[in-house]
């Protein structure tokens, strides 16, 4: 459970739901309603993509779930064991940018959440080493971020999100700025991590192809203020490069694209 939160963050009932948004809206004084009302449920261990046009409020939804911002109305609920050990944190968050401290080595960047939680040095060392190994950066612990490629920086960011052993991983268009080859590789690596670690993943993207390839369910959002327009289950067992070129994949992509077109069509005249 999220530690001592405001009234709007109640705990969800123990029915296997990890994230529950009910009637959540976010309004800004100067720009009006930016999001919602949004209703969304993500089961524990599920991989869900939040897909929508730029500016529909996908990132805002993620920030609300993480507690980085407070909803104007509605409820955000998170459940999870909240890992009893020190430095356990129920949420891992990967930003659009790698968001690394340029003055710290890869090791110290990944270690940050543990440092902030006063985890003893020996245990922190062990967990950082483990997280770095998991993203394939074991050899680069003492390197500074500027020496890394864009894809590797994103891996560091992912390792930092994993180091607290969170129940929920929130990813905000993490691979949007990467070249396609790197993105494909990271997509596959992310799937391996998800399968191995059994985390709940909520993945924000504006790529139809990425959402279909990665997730068990795609939640399609309307243009601003974003609401859930459709939810499409991607019932596929093996996700690999074969799936990417299969007829199934193309079919799902068409289905999601149509849902997305329908979602923006219903608001024609407002979105450009």
């Amino acid at each position: 459970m999220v530690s001592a939160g405001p009234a709007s963050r109640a705990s969800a009932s123990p029915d296997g739901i990890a994230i529950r948004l009910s009637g959540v809206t976010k309004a800004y004084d100067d720009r009006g309603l930016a999001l919602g009302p949004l209703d969304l449920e993500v089961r524990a261990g599920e991989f869900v993509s939040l897909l929508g046009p730029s500016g529909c409020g996908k990132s805002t939804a993620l920030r609300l779930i993480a507690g980085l911002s407070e909803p104007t109305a509605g409820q955000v609920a998170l459940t999870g064991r909240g890992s009893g050990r020190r430095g356990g944190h129920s949420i891992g968050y990967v930003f659009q940018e790698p968001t690394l401290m340029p003055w710290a080595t890869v090791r110290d960047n990944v270690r940050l959440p543990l440092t902030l939680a006063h985890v003893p040095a020996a245990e922190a060392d062990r967990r950082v080493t483990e997280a770095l190994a998991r993203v394939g950066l074991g050899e680069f612990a003492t390197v500074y971020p500027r020496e890394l490629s864009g894809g590797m920086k994103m891996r560091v960011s992912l390792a930092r999100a994993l180091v607290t052993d969170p129940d929920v991983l929130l990813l905000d268009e993490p691979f949007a700025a990467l070249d396609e080859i790197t993105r494909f590789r990271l997509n596959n690596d992310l799937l391996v991590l998800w399968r191995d670690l059994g985390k709940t993943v909520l993945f924000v993207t504006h790529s139809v192809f990425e959402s279909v390839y990665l997730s068990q369910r795609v939640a399609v959002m309307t243009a601003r203020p974003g609401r859930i327009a459709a939810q499409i289950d991607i019932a596929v067992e093996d996700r690999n490069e074969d799936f990417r070129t299969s007829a199934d994949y193309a079919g799902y992509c068409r289905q999601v694209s149509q849902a997305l077109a329908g979602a923006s069509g219903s608001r024609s005249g407002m979105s450009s």
Partner: protein
Amino acid sequence: MSEAEPQRRQGEENGRPHHRIGPLRVLLPIAVLIAGVVVWDLVVRLNEIPPYVLPGPGLVVRTLIADWPILGESLQVTLLTALEGFIAAAVGGMALALLFSQSKWLEFSLLPYAIILQVTPVIAIAPLLLIYLPQHLAVVACAWIVAFFPVLSNTMLGLNSVDRGLAGLFKLYGASPLQTLRHLKMPAALPYILGGLRIAGGLSLIGAVAAEIAAGAAGSGSGLAYRIAESGYRLNIPRMFAALVLLSAAGVVIYMGLALLSHLLLRRWHESALRKES
């Protein structure tokens, strides 16, 4: 899970221009210095200018050696004053910036007066300070007045230049204000603070000199600036030049020391230091 080789950039890209430009950056200023001294010497010799108008470089050097017991002691006095003013400015400027970052009320109340103190010429304030404070303290206060503002404004700029994404990350992981200050704000502000300190180093020397000259008129001082004023009254022009050379050298050494400190602290990660290597 392996990926493309890391872009270990500094070696390949920055290495080559370094070798070509490096020596020139040292040799060119030295060549200009030698040329200047030679021209100076020739002008004095060919026009037979008397030393009480313009002494030649040789005479200045001889004076510097001959008068070293007096000048060396004065150099120590001035350097100590500048150092005290600099430390007070560094500590005061950073502390004030930290206070301002904690409280907008304090910032709004005090910042205008910090600016007024900065824009009022120190040479005009010095005589007043000399009335109210003991001489040594007044001189240090002048050094502090001119030097603290760049530290204050640069630290404020640095503390406000924190990456928003990183600030969000610290919030997500429940960092305390003190942790945020230590692990995020101070490192992020460090390049700015060092830039402020580099300016403050030179300014503290200027402040000390301005105050010493103001105090020198009152007749009781022993710093280098006082020696310059005194030598002026006595028409001991070679000693004026010798003291001036020492002052400039002190300023250059202070600047280089702070630049080195900045380089050592930033070289691993900051763009400014990386470019400097090339």
